[in-house]
């Protein structure tokens, strides 16, 4: 850790509030949301094969080209 960065982070932390997170919050910023992001990745894989009911029903109803009469 560079001393100037720590000083800047501490100064920012003193101001408080959402726009100026504390030193602890800043150093943790690389980790925050990690569980959510990895679970989102797994969720995307799981949801890949789900079909919206209306789309599935439309696909069933739609006549195929080969079924059309000339």
């Amino acid at each position, binding site marked *: 850790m560079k001393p100037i960065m720590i000083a800047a982070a501490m100064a920012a932390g003193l101001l408080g509030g959402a726009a100026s997170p504390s030193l602890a919050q800043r*150093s943790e910023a*690389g980790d*925050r949301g990690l569980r959510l992001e990895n679970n989102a990745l797994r969720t995307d894989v*799981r949801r*890949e094969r789900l079909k*919206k009911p209306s*789309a599935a029903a439309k696909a069933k109803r739609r006549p195929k080209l080969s079924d059309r009469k000339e």
Partner: protein
Amino acid sequence: MRKLNALASAFGLLGMQHALAADEAAPEAVHRPQWSVLVSFSPTYTNNAQFRRDDRRRDVYAEPDVLLRLDGKLTSDISYRLYGRSSFDTFAQEQIGNETFALLGARLTRNILDWRTSVSYEHRFEFAGVYQDLLFIADDVQISTMRDFSYGPFTISPTAQLSYRFADVPEARRYRLDLLLPFEARITSRWSVVSTPFVEAYWFTDGLNEGRQDIIYSTSLGLRYSIANNISLTTSASYEWRTSNVPLRHYRDLEIGPRLDMAF
């Protein structure tokens, strides 16, 4: 349409002829944008709620995840997606670990040599607690590619994605590479065995995390039951561990729980 094609051909208007042919072949519905909503919910047990190297604490957390999206086609081979998504973790005991994200995103996808390849952009808000304190705002730029390989009841979907996170907090800025190998073995029409092993590498670029490099290894095994075409329930166990050139960032985590996924 045939007359128009002949006319276009006669005048050498190849571009027009191509456009007319595409117009004739593609059903109108293909180009109509479609809204959909995806909802997931999962109560999960974890043996390391805070992702700590030391002082590991067991807990149970709930994680709802809602995604609203609009899918459409720009051209016959390029599709787009606009979406908004939000999810949060809320722990029974370790409430300091509660966190939330909300994002808006856009994605373009094209098939390249049968690989679905996408570029995407996400504008992300990261909160501590459940929509409580805004920690940082990030802009993620990502390129990814994936393909399904099926052999009888088995499907394997290798996926690679590379992203960079721009953020207002320097410590959150980083490159990330994901390599996934999702696997599914269909047992019956409703039951499947599923697994999502992956490796992630992080290279942090700024602030107090400058020079930090992490690698996360994750593997999972689960059983999925398809309640309907648009609803499934997956019960799985996942094991994840991280190594880092910052030893304090090492962790191991085992999670077990059911997850309900729905599409509307």
